[in-house]
């Protein structure tokens, strides 16, 4: 419930962000470090940019990065999980060994290396992160698909001559739907956290507005009176964002995993 409310608020900020922002976040024509005023709700940063507009664009970028990564990782995970479960044998063996290797590799390290050396666009980084983080979804989906595959209704469909493609599309995929939501939420949360951390470390294009980057810049001026208007807002937004997705993931698991419901 709380998760949903927070999620709605943030979704509004993301969608309406460009209209709510009263200045271009790249406009550097304001008086640097001026305190909040009616013109600049959160004041102006050291580079003369409006902080409120920067914040709105930052949230937008973080959320888009998270959703895109979550979506891509989910699609790869679903395809590989289903292929693995349906065909079994050699493809299954190969894909699951591949998943184990990828699971062992710390994704953040590859991202840091690639970001530092090639300075790719956020889109490329998001795709790399997705390409490294599908194994957990694929494994969960494969395990559940193996259970569903043995179900009586699938046997019946087969007896009636349904093709593999038909069964996968009409039976397996819809029945695994709850798993998609859970793994999407988990991946999106991880990706938003990564985006904030990597931009905090300065690995993204510095002209791209981001919550992590705002925090990193604001910390350089911690001895000034900028705590309430510069440092706390991006931290608060990031925390609310991650919290909303976490709550969403937890409540989804509670709804769809009856074993867990009992534990709560």
């Amino acid at each position, binding site marked *: 419930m709380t998760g949903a409310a927070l999620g709605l608020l943030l979704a509004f900020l993301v969608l309406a962000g460009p209209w709510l922002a009263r200045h271009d976040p790249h406009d550097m024509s304001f008086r640097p470090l001026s305190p909040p005023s009616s013109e600049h709700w959160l004041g102006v940063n050291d580079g003369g940019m409006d902080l409120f507009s920067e914040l709105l664009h930052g949230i937008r970028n973080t959320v888009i990065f998270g959703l895109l990564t979550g979506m891509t990782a989910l699609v790869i995970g679903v395809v590989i999980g289903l292929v693995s479960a349906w065909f079994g044998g050699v493809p299954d063996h190969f894909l699951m060994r591949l998943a184990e290797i990828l699971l062992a*590799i*710390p994704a*953040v*390290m590859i991202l*840091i290396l*690639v970001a530092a*050396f090639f300075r790719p666009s956020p889109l490329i980084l998001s795709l790399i992160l997705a390409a490294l983080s599908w194994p957990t979804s694929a494994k969960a989906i494969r395990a559940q698909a193996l259970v569903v595959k043995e179900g009586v209704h699938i046997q019946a469909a087969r007896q009636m001559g349904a093709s593999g493609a038909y069964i996968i599309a009409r039976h397996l995929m819809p029945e695994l739907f709850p798993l998609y939501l859970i793994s999407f939420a988990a991946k999106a949360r991880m990706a938003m*956290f990564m985006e904030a951390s990597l931009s905090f*470390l*300065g690995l993204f294009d510095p002209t791209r507005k981001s919550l992590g980057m705002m925090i990193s810049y604001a910390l350089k001026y911690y001895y000034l009176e900028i705590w309430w208007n510069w440092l706390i807002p991006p931290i608060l937004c990031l925390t609310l964002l991650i919290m909303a997705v976490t709550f969403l993931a937890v409540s989804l698991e509670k709804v769809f995993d009856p074993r867990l419901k009992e534990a709560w």
Partner: protein
Amino acid sequence: MLAYVLAALVMMYVSYSVPRWLPGDFVTAMYSSSHVTLNAEQEAELRAYYTERPGFGRYLVDLFTLNWGYSFAFLTPISELIGEALPWSLLLLGTAHLLSMILGFLAGVEAAWRRGGLVEKAGVGSMTILEGIPEIGTAVILLLIFALHLGWLPAAGGETAYVEHSTGQWILDVMGHVALPLATLCLAYFPGNFLLTRGSMVMVLKEQFIDTARAKGLPPARIRYAHAARNALLPMVTRFGLRIAFMVTGALVVETIYAYPGLGTLLFNAISMRDLPLIQGIVLFSSLVVLFVNLALEFAYGWIDPRVKHAF
């Protein structure tokens, strides 16, 4: 086991080839964006040096003989820089994981035992909220309150510089400096361990062998720990293995915020100075450490739960 060895090889190969995928030749790619300006003679020598030993095999030999090259920014061997930073990171991360695992486990076991009570409900609620707060937020808020506002603890560094201390004073000084980053990391790791242990304990407590133990008239503490809790230990260790790569990211940020002299801060400095060889060295080294920890956990499973051993 094999997966980890392969993963380690993949990491080494990626780290070997990334500079070679950059446009231009290796030397231009590595030195063009650094502070170092090479004269023609040095450039020719470096080029000769790198064409003389280009292979992946040679790279592996260098790797295992700790011959990791030099940092541009610090003008020091990379192995030396990592060697200096490593003890600080180990102190911070090791203590944080140890504390949050032990405390999270004990609190989770006790909470499951007292399920339904007011304290337990409040605990679960607040831990779920805490679980959603990223390290970056906790770190800045603790820094603001305890270091900058109240001034109880130092805001940066691992020890007070340029001060002669006796051993006892030095230990206190180091403890004072580690306190805030440690608290941040514990707040980040504790809720997960607590919630997971509590969840698995609630399931275990429904098993029949718990009823048997109760029927035998065993003292409750013995049922809780000797009979039930052992079964709740494995999920926590598994979760640690799955999340370690994710947790490294958070630790990087926390070290940077407190300017703690560990590997995270070193990496941050390397990134801001575009010191590519140092970035490469730290990334490869920390990935191998993560892989090694995962491998060690694999062996720990068998020790925690003897049933796992029979599965192989």
